């Protein structure tokens, strides 16, 4: 049962199994174990970013191509929901769900079409070309999104109402369970959690399918794969379309959770950097690594700052050193970790854990 | 063999996962021209590239003029006096004929006498002196590639299929040029398919088969032994004409 859920791709390491179990269970019980709006928010973000990072791993780890446009698809998903809910509202007969359906469908169509276009255009050349073109397209898209303010709300983004059952005011029952109030927020969280889980398991299925094996064969030796008869451009473009679709769904989940979408939270290059760090530090080409990386990074964003603040205080007198440990410089240290990972641990945390067994 | 300018002992070369050379052994005597023959895929080009340091030998030893050059970087090998003409010719198409030769003449301005000699053999180079080399015809590119190797005196020339796709008149000129080189200053190691060319010029011969040298010896004896040719090359060299 478990074996088939994981598509026969078991963690193959006791510590990794424990860590994954901790993540799955921890996120499942998070609303009750760590009550409070902020921690629920962190938990939901982790879910969304696990999906986003895992879908990026399909490209980076399994297909061996670097796309800098992954946040673009993430943003398309978020804006799909945001625009639909803003325009159609939640007053209709479907209570907003029809808007969500339309938003998700439209986002998927746009994301897949765009991914196919970019892929067919640039994947036939070389990795570096694809990376550069995706970077250019993504930055143009981000600017476009902030320019078309009639549609997207510009720099401020969009704020909208979620369907009634997902709002805090919707109550399942009076009273609380382990300190958590049983309201629409809770439902919303479990919606995010469940969809995320399904998407990650779906990605596992894809990478362990024959399609996934072809991708890896292409990654190892594109010329050989082409010689055997696989159209590498087609396979890579397909992979990039699937990754785009999943990223758009992750964006939709974020929009359903946070009831707002803005360039900063969905399209910025900072998020792209975060995803890169998650996948590389967690371990490329494993999907599980994306999950570990996402948890690690979201935690680091929230808690590495506190640690740095302590160090910063300790060095308050020394001018540059104190700045090095400024709480806002957490990305500096993760960046260094990232570079070291690429050099010395290309398989990331998961690879290390698997070596240990 | 004390008078060997170049000697290979047990040289193995892998390209990626593929083992191409399985212990190549032969000597190139100082002075004269050695032909490196063999079927397609026998490892001739890989052998030249390994001598030049463009592939790294995984095992074995290459000695040039008594010195171990196995681990040296390509530029250092070249600076010992070895010139290389690859099968692809690798002329710089964006540069003019003149500029191609300027780069090949490492030690400075051209020696006018030598340049005249090259022009006398390869007249087209003079005619297209200031033309980007990319616009030359295939035969002219081959002339330029050879000219680049001999614009300054070098002790050893490694030449990969110099006559491939050339017109007979140009081949005759090429033969003359090589003859003058081997009778003068240089030692040549030439990969060749053209038997007429090989027999006309070769002093000694090394025949490769499946990543090894299967036969070494004098050219005259090899040219006479049709059974051996049949065995090593698949057909008598006479039939090549």
């Amino acid at each position, binding site marked *: 049962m478990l074996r088939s859920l994981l598509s026969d791709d078991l963690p193959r390491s006791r510590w990794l199994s424990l860590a994954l179990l901790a993540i799955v269970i921890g996120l499942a019980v998070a609303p009750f174990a760590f009550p409070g709006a902020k921690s629920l928010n962190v938990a939901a973000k982790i879910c969304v970013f696990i999906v986003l990072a895992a879908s990026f791993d399909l490209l*980076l780890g399994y297909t061996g191509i670097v796309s800098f446009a992954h946040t673009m698809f993430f943003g398309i998903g978020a804006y799909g929901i945001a625009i639909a809910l803003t325009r159609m509202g939640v007053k209709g007969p479907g209570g907003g769900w029809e808007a969500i359906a339309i938003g998700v469908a439209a986002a998927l169509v746009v994301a897949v079409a765009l991914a196919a276009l970019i892929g067919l255009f640039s994947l036939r050349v070389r990795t570096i070309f694809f990376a550069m073109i995706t970077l250019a397209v993504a930055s143009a898209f981000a600017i476009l999104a902030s320019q078309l303010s009639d549609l997207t709300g510009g720099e401020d983004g969009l704020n909208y109402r979620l369907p009634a059952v997902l709002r805090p005011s919707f109550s399942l029952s009076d009273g609380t369970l382990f300190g958590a109030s049983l309201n629409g927020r809770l439902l919303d969280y479990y919606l995010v959690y469940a969809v995320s889980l399904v998407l990650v398991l779906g990605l596992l299925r894809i990478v362990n399918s024959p399609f996934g094996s072809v991708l890896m064969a292409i990654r190892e030796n594109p010329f050989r794969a082409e010689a055997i008869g696989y159209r590498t451009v087609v396979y890579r473009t397909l992979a990039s379309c699937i990754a785009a679709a999943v990223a758009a769904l992750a964006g939709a989940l974020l929009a359903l959770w946070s009831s707002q979408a803005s360039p900063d939270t969905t399209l910025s290059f900072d998020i792209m950097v975060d995803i890169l760090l998650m996948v590389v530090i967690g371990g490329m080409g494993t999907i599980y690594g994306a999950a570990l990386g996402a948890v690690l990074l979201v935690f680091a964003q929230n808690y590495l700052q506190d640690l740095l603040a302590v160090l910063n205080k300790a060095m308050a007198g020394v001018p540059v050193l104190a700045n090095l440990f400024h709480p806002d410089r957490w990305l500096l240290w993760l960046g260094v970790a990232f570079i070291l990972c690429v050099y010395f641990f290309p398989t990331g945390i998961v690879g290390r854990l698997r070596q240990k067994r | 063999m004390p008078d060997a300018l170049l000697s290979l002992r047990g040289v193995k070369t892998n390209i990626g996962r593929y083992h191409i050379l399985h212990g190549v052994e032969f000597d190139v005597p100082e002075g004269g021209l050695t032909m490196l023959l063999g079927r397609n895929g026998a490892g001739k080009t890989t052998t030249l590239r390994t001598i*030049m340091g463009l592939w790294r030998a995984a095992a074995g030893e290459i000695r040039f003029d008594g010195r171990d050059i196995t681990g040296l970087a390509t530029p250092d090998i070249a600076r010992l006096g070895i010139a290389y003409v690859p099968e692809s010719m690798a002329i710089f198409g964006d540069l003019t004929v003149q500029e191609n030769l300027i780069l090949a003449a490492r030690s400075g301005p051209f020696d006018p006498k030598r340049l005249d000699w090259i022009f006398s053999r390869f007249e087209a180079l003079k005619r297209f002196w200031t033309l980007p080399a990319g616009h030359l015809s295939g035969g002219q590119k081959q002339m330029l590639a050879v000219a680049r190797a001999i614009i300054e005196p070098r002790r050893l020339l490694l030449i990969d299929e110099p006559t491939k796709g050339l017109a007979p008149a140009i081949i005759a000129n090429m033969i003359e040029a090589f003859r003058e080189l081997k009778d003068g200053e240089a030692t040549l190691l030439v990969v060749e398919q053209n038997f007429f060319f090989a027999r006309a010029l070769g002093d000694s011969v090394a025949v490769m088969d499946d990543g090894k040298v299967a036969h070494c010896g004098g050219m005259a004896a090899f040219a006479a032994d049709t059974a051996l040719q049949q065995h090593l090359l698949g057909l008598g060299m006479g039939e090549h004409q």
Partner: protein
Amino acid sequence: MKRDLLPWLLVPLVIVAALPLVGSAASWVTLTVAGLAMGLMVFIMASGLTLTFGLMDVLNFGHGAFIAVGAFVAASVMLAMGSWMSADSLALNLAAIVPAILAAMVVSGVLGFAFERVIVRPVYGQHLKQILVTTGGLIVAEQLIKVVWGPEQITLTRPEALRGAFLLGDIAIEKYRVLAVVVGLVVFAALALTLNRTRIGLLIRAGVENGEMVESLGYRIRRLFVGVFVVGSALAGLGGAMWGLYQETVTAGIGGQVIVLVFIVIIIGGLGSVGGCFVGALLVGLTQNYIGFLEPKVALGSNILLMALVLMWRPQGLYPVARR
């Protein structure tokens, strides 16, 4: 059997075609100068990147860091020389700007040397790692800039002599843009002369075409590459300094913003080609300014469109570099 000049003709073609679209001759001149100035600044920043790619097949995604560092170093020097900057004398202004720009180039060049050693060298020939590691280098460099110069943006005022515009009838041409055009053309001329008239230049061009053969002729291409990398970084620093003066603000994100333009330019030009990079930069600068005037909302999209059009015409860019 002549050189392929078609892409060069695109530049005057675009300029002429824009006149009827823009309508007024005065705005057209202003926009054209603005476009050339912007294009040439991007060219300065992009030239080194395209050469290092051509020579060693290395694409440095961290190139933006040199641009940013150049901008910050120049800003610091100019702020320190505040009184000369604000003086109403071209000589004093230049006495502040020239050392500022030189400092920017030196620091960026040194940084480039270190970057090549530490970040780039271990990942030769491995494209995926190259992209990842150099991106990592960019992240770290951006953070280090914040450590050294603080997270706030620096406001920079152009000196007296470079403010305002030359007026020719009803045509206004910003003085600083003229300077940018002059500097850009000087850099291009210097690069073109070096590449066409010196032995080092010939070696670089030969190396871009076939590095293996250059080595077989007895030249150490690695040294050549380090040299080009350092010069390219220094030029990025120069471009960054000029860009900072142009925008009159300097932020740590400056590298990330400009690098997108730089990438578009070198893709359009054909990876590895300096001439293509020059034409591409002018095209990008001009179209962005014309379209920014005609249809401001799609200005940045116009670059993508331009890139798509060029790639449809020539899939490898304007001047594809023959590769081994």
